[in-house]
């Protein structure tokens, strides 16, 4: 076993290269991404923490199996998020049940990110009840939810989202814009008040 301290100063991509020579280094990558990916899976699949962790184990094993196929032109984070995204979809197909509502652990984070976005220009001081957020998201089309999660909660830029969802940059931009528009419309329709 390696000392985990050895991993601290290494980039993801360096750890990938080291993993090919010594599988023990892979646990550093797992440690680095397990919390983020657990939250991500829960957000996009509405699964419980236990289910998300089970799925996560499969995701990391799959990533390890395919480590030689890691595309050096991508960030490792984009690659591992892509595997997680695909695995969640394949899980949906297996169970044939798509989640109806995205379950957020940190609803206020989401709104903070939305609020900081220039286009939406929402009042950051507005306090939202969890119920209100759920109501807003219920109205949002399924196809927009994941892209919003990646942009506003995971903090990914357009290029990273494009690499994760395997969609062209233009499509990602369109999805985000449409999602924002729909969100704005829903906020208006629901009669929430905002201070510009």
């Amino acid at each position, binding site marked *: 076993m390696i000392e985990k301290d050895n991993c601290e100063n290494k980039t993801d991509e360096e750890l990938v290269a080291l993993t*090919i020579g010594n*599988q*023990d280094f*892979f*646990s*550093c*990558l*797992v*440690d680095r991404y*397990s919390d983020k990916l657990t939250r991500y899976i829960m957000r996009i699949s509405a699964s419980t923490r236990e289910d998300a*962790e089970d799925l*996560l*184990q499969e995701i*990391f*094993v799959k990533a*390890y*199996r*395919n*480590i*030689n*196929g890691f*595309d050096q*032109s991508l960030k490792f984070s984009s690659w591992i998020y892509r595997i997680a995204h695909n695995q969640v979809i394949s899980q949906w197909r297996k169970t044939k049940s798509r989640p109806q509502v995205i379950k957020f652990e940190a609803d206020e984070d989401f709104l903070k990110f939305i609020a900081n976005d220039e286009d939406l220009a929402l009042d950051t001081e507005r306090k939202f009840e969890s119920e209100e957020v759920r109501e807003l998201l219920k109205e949002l089309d399924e196809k927009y939810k994941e892209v919003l999660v990646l942009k506003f909660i995971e903090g990914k830029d357009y290029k990273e989202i*494009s690499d994760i969802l*395997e*969609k*062209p*940059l*233009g*499509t990602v931009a369109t999805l985000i814009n449409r999602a924002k528009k729909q969100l704005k419309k829903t906020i208006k329709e629901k009669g929430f008040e905002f201070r510009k």
Partner: protein
Amino acid sequence: MDNLGDKVLRKIKEECICPKPRWQFLMKDYFIWFLFLVALLLGSLAFCVVLYVLSVNDWDLYQYLHTSLVGHILISIPYIWIIFLAIFVLIAHYNFKHTKSGYRRETYFVVGLSVAGSLFLGVFLYILGTGEKIEDFVETSVPMYEKIACCSTRKDIWVQPSRGLLAGKIVSVMDARNFEIKDFSGSAWQIQEDDDTLEYDPLRIQPGEDVKIIGEKKMDFVFWAREIRPWKNKGEAHKANARLENE
């Protein structure tokens, strides 16, 4: 308690899970590129036949078919080859999108690239004469082809003596003004020429040649030829007298 990193590592070790070798990923990527190129090539072959069929079409035929020029154009379009072209463009698009970085390109770019690739290569193959070879091959090996291909190569359209259209194979040459053909439906016809008959290069009035004739049915199995064209590749027109003088 183990953290997830340790759990995953233990599973990897216990189940002896190994990373797939790099060559497998490379092979998969090369294979997808190969399929993309094959689809592009097949698309270009379809397009070179489109060009060929359009180039040998008798665009003036509509006068004899009692239809308008637009109507004639519509029945002359080689739809079957255009459908093939579209199918191969879609296959090329699908494969391109599944290359390692294909998803980064917009659909219109990939479709545009596939179409442009097929058209460019198709023109090149057409110049090399590939269109004609493919058409000949398909014509002889696919029985239904002449029923579905474009107008000028449809033999049934050319066997309408009452409308002034007749085509078939020359079986014998009686004299300078008369020869006999067996039309594509199997009937024998005597063909009569006169001073006004037009002939199109590269016509050869000799047994074994396929010809198409525009003229008039004089009586049963006797047909007067106003124009005689080679079955394919119509060139310049001249009076029948010119051929006779050369002979």
